[in-house]
């Protein structure tokens, strides 16, 4: 790079770019400067004088800002400051996601009809899932009609049919099937005569409700 000579006035010795660069880099103290550069070197040196009290009087305020915005005990610094809220905010999100997945699985199970009977019934009442499957339990053949606890039970080989879509008779209606007494008929209502099959309206196939009974195939 060319070293242009410069003089401001005739009585000031010329100064080159190298001298300016040395001044700017703090490598030309006033005592080493040529006479013509001495005022300039003094000015540059004055710019870099040690701090005066007024320049460091604000240190307590700066420390306070540091404490308020940054400083914590070193042993608590596990994560950078900006990551903590992000992790904390993920916890409820994850919980909500887990709950949604669980509800989805439960709903799928309910509509598949694979839940236990009480849960399936609850699902049926709550959001219209299929009612629990009604199965006819075989009754001991020795139980004669009319005996307490056996009145109205469907004899062996008979199936009480329920129209599709009404797998569980609505509460309060005749023919209600209480839990644990599937296929029972209340006493006094006759039930289905032995050897007969309760008729099912056309289109109300209930073949899937048949439960094979020993001896009847």
């Amino acid at each position, binding site marked *: 790079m060319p070293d242009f000579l410069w003089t401001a006035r005739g009585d000031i010795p010329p100064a080159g770019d190298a001298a300016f660069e040395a001044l700017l880099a703090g490598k030309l103290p006033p005592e080493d400067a040529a006479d013509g550069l001495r005022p300039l070197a003094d*000015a540059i040196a*004055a710019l*870099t004088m040690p*701090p*005066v009290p*007024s*320049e460091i009087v604000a240190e307590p305020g700066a420390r306070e800002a540091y404490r308020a*915005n*940054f400083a914590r005990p070193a042993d608590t610094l596990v994560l950078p400051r900006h990551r903590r809220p992000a992790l904390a905010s993920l916890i409820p999100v994850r919980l909500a996601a887990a709950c949604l997945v669980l509800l989805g699985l439960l709903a799928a199970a309910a509509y598949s009809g694979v839940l236990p009977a009480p849960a399936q019934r609850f699902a049926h009442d709550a959001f219209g899932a299929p009612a629990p499957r009604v199965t006819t339990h075989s009754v001991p053949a020795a139980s004669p009609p009319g005996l307490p606890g056996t009145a109205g039970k469907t004899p062996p080989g008979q199936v009480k049919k329920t129209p599709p879509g009404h797998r569980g008779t609505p509460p309060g209606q005749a023919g209600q099937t209480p839990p644990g007494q599937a296929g029972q008929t209340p006493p006094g209502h006759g039930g289905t005569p032995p050897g007969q099959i309760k008729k099912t309206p056309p289109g109300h196939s209930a073949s899937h409700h048949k439960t094979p009974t020993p001896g009847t195939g």
Partner: protein
Amino acid sequence: MIGDEFPAILAAAQVGREDAFAALWRDGNPALLRYLRVAAPEAPEDVASEIWVQVVRGLAGFQGTEPDWRAWLFTIARRRALDERRRRSRHPVAPLTDLPGRLEPRSQDAAGQAMENLATAAALAAVAQLPSLQGEVILLRVLAGLDTDAVARIVGRSPGAVRVAAHRGLRRLAQILDTTGVTL
């Protein structure tokens, strides 16, 4: 300048060591204030406080050497000074000389501070008479200890333009000092 201890001091300040931050502050604030007395002469202390708040916010993510640190510090300072100038131009304020005497702020030891600061204040006053780019380039090179390339990045000019501005500024500064007869 802090020197060889800078990486350790910076690392300590980044993990919450207040004393380490204070060392960074004591090293940087005087130069910052002197720069702001030219770049934002209306409220250099207020602007410096805002700069340090911003520094504290970004301190944990800073990576670099001591020259990088000073370049970052003065980059923030320059932006804040420009903001302050814009704000002042939009909302001009009445000069303190228009206030009644009893309302004028007084330092507890203004005379003592003036004596301590005389040479530096005279030099800053001379630099303030330079065209803005020339004065800014000289201050960034001298006060911040930055090289030409770093200053060029801060002011958004080419290194050649910065070099020319610095040298022209020094020539002009020598003329000002000679004309005004300021003895430092």
